[in-house]
């Protein structure tokens, strides 16, 4: 059982909570105690029930079995607003901000300050916003419109917004999934200050390294059940992974390497001019070469131009891109995505929901979307063939679906990602570009995707992986390209690359 070595009483307690969705259990008899001044990590694969549990604790879900207890008193929040008023705040993974309002307006949205006339008191709001941002060491003008900020900065605004409320329990759902290391450092600073003030923090994250840095206690969920909990200090990385998946991550590394001497992709002097600013380059003079069977990792900090390199190769911005692209030694003119596909290039984009999938279409329809011409005659689609191909990929990628006719919006993140990958493998590419292929998916699916990268490389495909997670880059790549401020600052082989060397190159600034 829980050992209550802490003298304080829990501020928030979840007792024997269960929740089902039309008969299927999402949570089973969960107990959880959150103490003031501590960071409690909730760990588990996607679909393990983390978000469901937090939605119950913060008033998003109102129907469940069991009790939620705040300060020793049983509560039943009717909605998130009520929870907020009682000091329980949730910061969602998705941003809930208005792009065309300023930082100040966003911070005070729903809680605006008014003057005696009943009109908005902008001077006071700006003043408070400025103080708050300063306290967060977040150096930015609060008049700035939100859509001028990078995603990571927006995330900080979201966090700042919840700080305005005097909350006692703060639930953070994957707060670092889209922010750079610098912003992570800022966030951790904030968390430490909150802890000192006695705020209890529930922290959901996939990044175990972070948890060791910031969390005091943890609870691991698997398939809706609590499989372990305790103090972070006495637990190892591997133990946590074992609890999460019930298997070890040992085979996720690239073992068999079979790089052929044939060059499948060469990029020369690739430049991508910022459409908004003549003198700025998003990608500046990048050159690299990729052989058949080789996996090239591209890394760098947020905004270093990682995604843009892939987009430039893929023909998304033909007007602003210059440079030469060779496939199998032959120069290709790529003016649009269709040209890229014809040349044998495929891109699995960063955001599978916004860029990868047609959510209300089914698995088969999504799988065939980029290669429909192959399975149609006189524009008529051969639906049998379509389903057959889709089923093949479902088996090959081990996608968890009941049938190819299942709508993709009902799948978990990992399975959705597999559908996007299947779509691109169906085009039979020579070069596969993967942008953050494992973002927001659970460790089980991650391992499978690493294994797939291995397998495809072995079959002779050239693969480029962009990732913000260094361990990922180190474990899948044969060679590594490091970007900093749109330029390449290092090209490393797997043998010479270490996290330290990469970080140094990624932080190198222009002279």
């Amino acid at each position, binding site marked *: 059982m829980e050992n209550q070595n802490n003298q304080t009483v829990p501020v928030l307690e979840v007792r024997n909570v269960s929740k089902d969705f*039309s008969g299927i259990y999402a949570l089973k008899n969960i107990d959880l105690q959150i103490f003031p001044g501590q960071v409690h990590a909730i760990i588990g694969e996607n679909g393990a029930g983390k978000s469901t549990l937090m939605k119950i604790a913060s008033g998003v879900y109102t129907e469940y079995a069991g009790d939620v207890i705040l300060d020793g008193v049983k509560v039943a929040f009717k909605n998130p607003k009520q929870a907020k008023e009682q000091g329980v705040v949730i910061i969602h993974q998705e941003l809930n901000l208005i792009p065309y309002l300023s930082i100040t307006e966003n911070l005070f949205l729903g809680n605006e300050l008014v003057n005696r006339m009943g009109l908005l008191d902008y001077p006071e709001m700006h003043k408070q916003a400025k103080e708050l941002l300063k306290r967060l060491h977040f150096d930015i003008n609060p008049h700035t419109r939100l859509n001028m900020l990078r995603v990571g900065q927006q995330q900080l605004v979201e966090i700042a917004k919840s700080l305005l409320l005097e909350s006692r329990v703060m639930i953070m759902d994957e707060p670092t999934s889209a922010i750079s290391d610098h912003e992570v450092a800022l966030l951790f600073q904030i968390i430490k200050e909150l802890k000192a003030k006695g705020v209890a923090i529930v922290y959901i994250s996939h990044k175990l390294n972070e948890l060791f840095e910031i969390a005091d206690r943890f609870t691991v969920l698997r398939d809706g059940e609590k499989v372990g909990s305790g103090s972070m200090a006495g637990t190892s990385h591997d133990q946590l992974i074992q609890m999460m998946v019930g298997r070890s991550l040992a085979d996720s590394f690239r073992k068999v390497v079979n790089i052929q001497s044939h060059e499948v992709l060469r990029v020369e002097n690739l430049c991508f001019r910022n459409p908004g600013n003549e003198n700025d380059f998003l990608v500046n003079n990048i050159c690299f070469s990729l052989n058949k069977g080789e996996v090239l990792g591209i890394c760098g900090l947020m905004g270093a131009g990682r995604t843009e390199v892939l987009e430039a190769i*893929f023909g*998304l911005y033909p007007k602003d891109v210059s440079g030469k692209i060779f496939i199998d030694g032959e120069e290709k003119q790529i003016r*649009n*995505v*269709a040209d*890229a*596909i014809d040349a044998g290039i495929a*891109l699995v*984009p960063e955001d599978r929901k*916004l*860029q*990868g*999938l*047609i*959510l*209300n*279409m089914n698995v088969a*329809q999504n799988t065939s*979307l*980029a290669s*429909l*011409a192959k399975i*149609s005659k006189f*524009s*008529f*689609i051969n*639906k049998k063939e379509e389903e057959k191909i889709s089923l093949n990929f479902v088996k090959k990628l081990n996608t968890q679906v009941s049938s190819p006719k299942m709508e993709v919006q009902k799948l978990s993140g990992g399975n959705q990602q597999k559908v996007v990958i299947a*779509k691109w493998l169906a085009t039979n590419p020579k070069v596969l570009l993967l942008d953050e292929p494992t973002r927001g998916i659970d460790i089980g699916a991650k391992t499978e995707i690493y294994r797939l990268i291995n397998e495809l490389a072995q079959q002779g495909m050239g693969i480029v992986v962009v990732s913000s997670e260094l361990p990922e880059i180190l474990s899948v790549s044969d060679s590594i390209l490091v970007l900093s401020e749109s330029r390449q600052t290092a090209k490393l082989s797997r043998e010479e690359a270490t996290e330290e060397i990469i970080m140094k190159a990624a932080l190198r600034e222009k002279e």
Partner: protein
Amino acid sequence: MDTQDLKTKLIKFQSIIALLIMCIVLSLLSDRFMSADNIWNVMRQISVNMIISVGMTLVILIGGIDLSVGSVLALSGAITAVMLKYGNEFPGWNIHIGFTLIGALLGGTLIGAFLGWFNGLTITRFKVPPFVATLAMLTIARGLTMLLTGGFPITGFSDQMAFIGTGWFLGIPMPVWISAVVVLVAVVLTNRTRLGRYIYAIGGNETAAELSGLKINKIKLIVYSIAGALAAVGGIIVTSRLDSAQPNAGSGFELDAIAAVVIGGTSLSGGKGTIMGTVQGTLIIGILNNGLVLLNVSPFWQQVIKGMVILVAVVIEKFNSKDKQ
């Protein structure tokens, strides 16, 4: 599981069930409703809305809207009428070109397609929101119709021309044949062809569709052209049935078409909906109109009731789609 199945089936066939209930109630309240005369009458009346609504469905499926169909109908009808009646004069060269019936019909349809294509062009090339682009076309095409006709109807065509709107073939009115063919082609297009799939994909997620190599602009141009061409076909039927091209023909038709599409369960945000849904929507509006007339409901109340039906249909639709999540 069984009740779940039953529920999804009920949701799937809700428009048909609504239709059946309407028909049963009306036949109990009015002797004339179920007569063959009345049924063909209803079918003939709704066929123009049916044809326009099919085009509107495609436009709405890609996440757009076309407010110009009523005016495009009028302009295409008027141009067809002018071609039939006067041919085309080229004063500078002293040339006069007359048109056969087929030539004029084809010409009128092409004009409609061109107007639709122009909508598509402003939307794709100049990034004008569909609502604004087609609102502008609504005014432009209506104005051009007035200029062309001088504000007066153009009347008096051949019997062959009249046959299109008033004739019967194998015991079924011609407009019903035409709308049936249009519906059939559209069903095949949306369900079986690549273009159909691409239409759904663009409406479902334009970014993902573009990243999958789809030529978004080309497909949009095609869809708006189809909508324009179908409006023109409607214009030809209206002109033929009245034996005259009215300068104010088709005004307000865009609203009936949008209503039919929405009642038929197509989502205004695109990507979701079917042609058969729209067919049911058209039938519901048509039968409702007919029933209210048969029951001597005042025209003012008719409008109120029609509006309520649209609201209820959309609310039910929203309710159902929320239920699914």
